[in-house]
């Protein structure tokens, strides 16, 4: 599904990511972790196409997307959410998700409303709202909702574009325990029941070890370890990196 080959990113003299590879299979949930400054976000931004790598290549569904800009990757089937919530605050939850569905359905130039268009997009929007559990709040303005519900709206927007791969940038950032639990349950359900392939960055280790099939650990820009959660938990190198950070 996603094949990252030896990518490196330099900003001037700073090497933010050096020579990291990663292979994500269909249906897999991959977590990327690492201490602060490990290069997680830079790595993630190259996958989503926010900027291209200095070296190396990225393949998505067998196609080289190394230099494909982010919005075109979205069209190819990469959905993403952001570390800082990005929604349309003065529109309702339904309108947020509906717009995403309409764009995916190729209706951006449809200037007169018609029933076929509306049914197509409304069905997708309704399905995704039901899937993430926001149906009851569909007509609330997103700006009025709690932080957790706003992030859930973002996930619904990404889902409405029918992605093959879902990229989640710190899905629980800034959330309380209850909200973290709810969004973790949602991601788990998307993964286990709907078989979405998901790559996420996450700081909360409870969330990571609860969700991930495989974990990629970055440290100081390089690949430190890769493996199943129990392997990573047992790895001395990983423990050293995290303890080293807190020293």
């Amino acid at each position, binding site marked *: 599904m996603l094949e990252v080959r030896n990518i490196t990113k330099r900003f001037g003299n700073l090497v933010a990511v050096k020579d990291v590879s990663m292979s994500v299979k269909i249906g897999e949930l991959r977590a990327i972790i690492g201490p602060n400054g490990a290069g997680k976000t830079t790595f993630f931004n190259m996958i989503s196409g926010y900027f291209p790598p200095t070296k190396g290549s990225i393949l998505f569904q067998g196609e080289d997307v190394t230099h494909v800009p*982010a*919005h*075109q990757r*979205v*069209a190819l089937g990469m959905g*993403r959410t*952001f570390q800082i919530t*990005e*929604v*349309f*605050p*003065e*529109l*309702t939850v*339904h*309108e947020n998700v*509906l*717009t*995403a569905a*309409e*764009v*995916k*359905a190729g*209706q*951006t*130039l*449809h*200037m*007169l*409303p018609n029933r076929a*268009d509306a049914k197509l*997009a*409304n069905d997708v*929007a*309704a*399905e995704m*709202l*039901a899937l993430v559990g926001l*149906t*009851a709040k*569909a*007509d*609330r*303005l997103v700006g009025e909702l709690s932080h957790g519900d706003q992030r859930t709206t973002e996930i619904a*927007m990404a889902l409405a*574009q029918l992605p093959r791969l879902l990229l989640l940038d710190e899905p629980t950032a800034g959330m309380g325990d209850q909200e973290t639990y709810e969004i973790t349950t949602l991601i788990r359900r998307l993964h286990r029941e709907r078989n979405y392939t998901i790559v996420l960055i996450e700081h909360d280790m409870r969330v990571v070890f609860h969700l991930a099939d495989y974990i990629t650990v970055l440290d100081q820009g390089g690949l430190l370890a890769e493996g199943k959660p129990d392997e990573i938990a047992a790895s001395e190198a990983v423990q050293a990196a995290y303890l080293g950070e807190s020293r």
Partner: protein
Amino acid sequence: MSTDVGTSPAITSVAARRSPIVPRWGVLILVWAVLIAVPYWLPLLGGYTALAGRVLVFGLAAMGLNLLLGFTGVLSFGHAAYFGLGAYGAGLTLRYLAHSTPLAMLLGTLLGGLAGSLFGLLIVRRRGVYFAMCTIAFGQLWYYLAYSWNDFTGGFDGLRDFHREPIGFGRLTLDIAQGGDRFYFFLLAVFAAAVGLMGLLVRSPFGHTLRAIRENERRARFLAIPVERQIWLSFSISCFFTALAGTLYALLNNFADPLALHYSLSGYFVVMCVMGGMRTFWGPLVGAALFVVLQDYISSMTVNWMSFVGAIFVLVVLFFPRGLLGMRRIRGSA
């Protein structure tokens, strides 16, 4: 949401929009009833029908601008250019080309709309103040052209010696050459057709992408919305509507003057949108009505009418920051 009990959640999310205080059909009936009945109630208040005609013309121009301003979140301070080009296009057609009102309206609208579309290509990557400055500069270009080209446009004195012509042929002729109610209803019919089109536009998937750009351009881009193309289309369409209003302005006055191109008029259009409520569909019409009536009333007493309109504008912005209609916060259409 109390009626939702028992229905499936997936269906209610689509079917049951939160209803505003006044339902949408109620607003529509009210607006059109008031507009159609103008010749009957306006004289009772001491007004005259031509004044209502001006409200329609400026209201249409402001509503056209509001597609860009309120529904796309892009500020143009140069829409008088397209309004004026529409007016001159219609006037020049009637004077030099043919005595045909429909042709004058068509050519005027095309002139203003196409000028806007071409200019839009150049500035669509600019944002905020830079975009606004570009629109002012381009607008003033046309103002000075009309101002200086005495032989063709009448220069400072404006374009005269043309007259709106009856529409149709033989027995099916609509004689709008005279003023009065018949011409008002003609204006209202054109207004209704244009505004109906706008209403469909903002409810279409295209209209939804514009709202998304207004709300969060970065997010819109990451939804794969082609932001620049949509803004250009919004700008162009907005120019066409404002140009159409300009042609009506020429027909209304049998006259086109350089001030119809001047950036101060662009500012008035923005004021109309803001006063009425730029996040609402009908706001600019309400703003235009207030503006035109105030101007008419106060300018009969003092030449400094703009000071008073300005003071009222400040009061409206202070007490109704979202405009007179903005308090209603209509969802979906707003």
